[in-house]
């Protein structure tokens, strides 16, 4: 381990570790929460964390390709949120709750 002072200089690793922590937070949300809406929000959190590391790599390697990928990820994320929320609305119309317990109803 190199012993540079982490507070004196901001490098690529700072952004990558921030991205990892944000991703892990979203993952904890997906694992721990029971509300479908909050689950979708946690997924958005994970996608944003990945975007941060794309942009950071793109900056420190002087390439623009990372930013293009961030475009694509954003579009997919917006589409995913739209579909997920439509499904959540349908579930709420049927079962009058958005708790993940509704999966018990899916047993054949």
């Amino acid at each position: 381990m190199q012993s540079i002072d982490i507070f004196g200089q901001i490098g690529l690793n700072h952004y990558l570790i921030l991205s990892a922590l944000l991703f892990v937070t979203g993952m904890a949300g997906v694992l721990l929460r029971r509300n479908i809406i909050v689950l979708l929000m946690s997924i958005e959190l994970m996608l944003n964390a990945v975007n941060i590391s794309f942009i950071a790599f793109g900056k420190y390697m002087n390439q623009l390709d990372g930013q293009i990928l961030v475009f694509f990820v954003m579009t997919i994320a917006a589409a995913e949120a739209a579909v997920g929320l439509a499904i959540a609305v349908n579930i709420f119309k049927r079962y009058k709750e958005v708790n993940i317990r509704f999966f018990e109803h899916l047993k054949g």
Partner: protein
Amino acid sequence: MTADIFLFWLLASVTLLSGVGVVLVSNPIYSALCLAMTMVGVSAIFATLGAYFIAGVQMIVYAGAVMVLFVMVLMLFDLKTEIATFSRGRISGAIKIAIVGLLAGLIAGTFAMTTTIAGKPETKEKAGHAAKSLGELLFTKYVFGFEALGVLLLIIAIGVVGLARSKGGTHAKH
């Protein structure tokens, strides 16, 4: 401590704290507000990394459109009587948290042990020039992905309208 370093730590702490808030707050409305704060923080981080155009798009798409979508759906539901916020079971919860912590430790340890792969970033480009070259790259090298994304968005728009109009899906009781 220069302004850049201070800005990074400020933005990182704001983003992380509001991200943790999304997971920990039990009221979904407050979760949505925390998520909006996280989006704004991430957008500011993009701006500090020199990706000004992406920062603007992030503000418009996420902090604008996606958050409005979430808040609208939350408004449709009556979520004042939420029964179980977190999943049941202390042991399984502890295992989940341990797994998540292990993943975080692994990633952070990997970054700490690798030597720096990339060099220093070059001198800052002008913002307008960066957006221009971004567009050129999008319409030359990645034009196939761009078109495929357009087709995907069309399919999703049709699918969501169909989903919203369906009455109970395949197991409808008429």
